[in-house]
């Protein structure tokens, strides 16, 4: 792929009075008046070629009495993201036009902004709460909304540091627990409304009809949140005609643990261990994206050796992520645990390396702004080399031989879960699933970060866009990751691994930044806003699992319910990141 040329269309000149350049210091992009949002967005998509929306998030500027929605869009032919914003006065009801008609991939992200900020997206087809439940009191991500265990706006909390006279949160909270109710609330007089009613109303209506003289009914099936093959606490509600899916909706929020709210209270550095707990398979990769965003604002250059270490750790986690996916997929398809045991065997060896370099198997907390926290010692380096050069290539071959040609497997996977390349782009699908649809989009090449431009590797592409191709594509990716690792291990030089001195507090200049990486599951982005204080003003995580699930309904309708399990497995969701 050639180096993409940055489009230099001046939107402010093109749409005078409707678009202005964002001139706030540290900010970039365009501010579009909300009345013209859809018109300008359509222009950006059709004329400028930004065919996919990647990130959409709201920011509450409490002091400016303004609610802002930020959009990041990219071209699937490569290049950096384009940022534009729409603003609305912070008076309820806050209304901003929906861009679902332009980019259908905005659907779930707009619902999230509605749920957490109370912004009504006019024209959204299905605007319901998504992470919290219907009936929850308030919009929790607003700056003036305080949780029951609220202590202070920003950490470090005075009760803990420096004196450390901490009282248990339960003794401080009004209701003695992590709950809050309005004054005068009476649970006995409270009339419960059915929280599921709105959900069922959005499904295609249940109907019964007479077919061939037999009375037939549609069936509503709930899968999850406790189900062995939903990969955690994901829930799907499907309307079935016999075995065929007529309509299906994802229901999430069962693992919504408020990363963003906690992240805004944390100091910049304190967020790094939290990023580990998003996609808990790839804690190494998660922190990378966050570090990139903050480094962009602080203008730090990462030392050479640290860049190599980042690539090594990142690609190792990509390999183990894909291995787990294979193992778990086969579990879901009924081959109980045997392939998973093969996958876990190799994963344990990779986790040994993580443990040796970072101290923890899963929650590595290893990346820092400007490098990594400590160097790889000789013994671990030797282990990595053994693994990458000697063991893994053969073992991947073995797993490939064991699984890929299996007749039952192929017949379960072939032609199932088709999603056209156009739909994939429209629904903001990123990562392996996009490349399996024939779109060679990989951020490592399209918008390079770190030192990925130094390595020789291919972006594998498959064209059938079914489950089998998605599976093969991931197998190809493992081989490419091994190629990158082998080059990185040969090229790595000695040197420092952290720019400057290790610090606990960081002064991040005022402004915004969007850092994006090609995580194993797709694009992982962090949108952070700093107001110059010790903690982020806004800390938004654009996770691949959450956005990729937008296309689930499109893939599942018309297939059998048993295939839904395989389709979901191939979307490769992880709940920590789906619900955040």
């Amino acid at each position, binding site marked *: 792929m050639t180096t993409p040329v940055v489009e230099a269309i001046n939107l402010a000149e093109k749409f005078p009075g409707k678009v202005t350049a964002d001139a706030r210091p540290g900010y970039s992009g365009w501010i579009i008046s909300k009345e013209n949002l859809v018109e300008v967005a359509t222009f950006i998509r059709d004329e400028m070629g930004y065919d996919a929306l990647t990130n959409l998030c709201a920011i509450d500027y409490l002091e400016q009495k303004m609610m802002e929605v930020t959009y990041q869009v990219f071209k699937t032919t490569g290049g950096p993201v384009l940022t534009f914003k729409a603003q609305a006065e912070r008076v309820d009801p806050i209304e901003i036009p929906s861009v679902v008609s332009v980019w259908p991939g905005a659907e779930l992200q707009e619902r999230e902004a509605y749920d957490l900020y109370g912004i009504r997206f006019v024209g959204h087809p299905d605007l319901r709460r998504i992470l919290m439940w219907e009936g929850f009191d308030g919009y929790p991500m607003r700056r003036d909304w305080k949780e029951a265990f609220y202590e202070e706006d920003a950490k470090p909390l005075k009760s803990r540091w420096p004196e450390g006279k901490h009282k248990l949160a339960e003794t401080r909270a009004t209701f003695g627990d992590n709950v809050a109710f309005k004054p005068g609330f009476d649970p006995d007089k409270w009339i419960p409304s059915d929280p599921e009613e709105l959900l069922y109303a959005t499904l295609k209506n249940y109907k019964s009809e007479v077919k061939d003289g037999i009375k037939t009914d549609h069936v509503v099936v709930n899968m999850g949140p406790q189900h062995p093959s939903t990969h955690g606490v994901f829930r799907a509600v499907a309307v079935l005609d016999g075995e065929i899916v007529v309509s299906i909706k994802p229901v999430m929020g069962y693992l919504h643990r408020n990363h963003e709210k906690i992240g805004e209270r944390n100091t910049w550095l304190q967020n790094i261990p939290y990023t580990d707990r998003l996609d808990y398979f790839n804690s190494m990769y998660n922190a990378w994206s966050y570090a990139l965003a903050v480094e962009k604002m602080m203008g730090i250059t990462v030392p050479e050796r640290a860049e190599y270490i980042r690539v090594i750790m990142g690609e190792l986690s990509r390999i183990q992520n894909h291995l787990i996916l294979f193992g778990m997929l086969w579990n879901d398809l009924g081959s109980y645990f045997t392939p998973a045991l093969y996958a*876990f065997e190799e994963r344990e060896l990779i986790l040994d390396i993580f443990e040796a370099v970072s101290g923890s198997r899963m929650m590595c907390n290893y990346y820092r702004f400007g490098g990594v926290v400590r160097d790889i010692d000789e013994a671990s380096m030797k282990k990595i080399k053994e693994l990458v050069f000697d063991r893994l290539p053969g073992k991947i071959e073995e797993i490939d031989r064991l699984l890929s040609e299996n007749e039952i497997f192929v017949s379960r996977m072939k032609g199932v879960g088709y999603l056209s390349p156009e739909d994939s782009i429209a629904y903001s699908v990123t990562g392996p699933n996009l490349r399996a649809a024939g779109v060679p989009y990989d951020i490592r090449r399209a918008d390079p970060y770190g030192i990925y431009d130094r390595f020789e590797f291919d972006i594998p592409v498959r064209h059938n866009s079914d489950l089998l191709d998605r599976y093969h594509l991931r197998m190809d990716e493992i081989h490419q990751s091994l190629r990158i690792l082998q080059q990185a291990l040969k090229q790595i030089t000695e040197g420092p691994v952290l720019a400057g001195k290790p610090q606990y507090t960081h002064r991040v200049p005022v402004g915004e930044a969007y850092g994006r990486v090609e995580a194993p599951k797709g694009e992982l982005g962090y949108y952070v806003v700093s107001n110059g204080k010790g903690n982020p003003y806004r800390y938004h995580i654009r996770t691949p699992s959450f956005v990729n699930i937008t296309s689930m309904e499109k893939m599942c309708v018309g297939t059998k319910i048993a295939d839904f399990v395989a389709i979901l497995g191939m979307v490769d969701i992880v709940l920590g990141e789906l619900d955040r």
Partner: protein
Amino acid sequence: MSNNELNSPGYEIPEELEGKVAITTLDKIYNFGRRSSVWPMMFGLACCAIEMIAAQAARYDMARFGMEVMRPSPRQADMMLVAGTVTKKMIPAIVRLYNQMAEPKYVVAMGACASGGGPFKEGYNVVAGIDKFLPVDVYIPGCPPTPQALVAGMIKLQEKIDKQSISQVRWYKKGADTVETPIPFLGPDLIDPRHIPEIKAKAAELAALAAAASETVA
């Protein structure tokens, strides 16, 4: 279990029956059966669930201790391993699953979140520990606990089972202990039915305070 442990001392076995008859207490043989086949419920909440799977896999192999049969149905499970952050949205389902489990049943809180909220305790959608709702038998520290820690926790549970007596355990007694845990529900916030009187009193108090404040302003 060795012969010595199984045979309670003081009963002499006639010579012709030695090696054919063992004398023990009902508690011992009953606990031996239970502790050797603790079937966990297949039910992962968050990060800890991955370490739970790793503990089941080849390297750590929890099956060595008789607890490998993961059951997705609560009816077939003996032990609920709460592996991960408990959220307000999820807790009604968890309590319902617990109520559906047949007795004897045990709860193990795996990791910091399930034990007390962990790093996410301050979150608005997080329940600060499963013990706010269910009786926990063993807490396993860690974030997430390593598979070794999980196995150690399981062995602790086995030790606990060993010490129980049929005449003492709560599920064979008559009375309040066997009543189902009331299922919390989602209102404006999570409502625990056991705390309704307190919530009501506190909310009324707040309303009175607010009224007094507005009067003084006026």
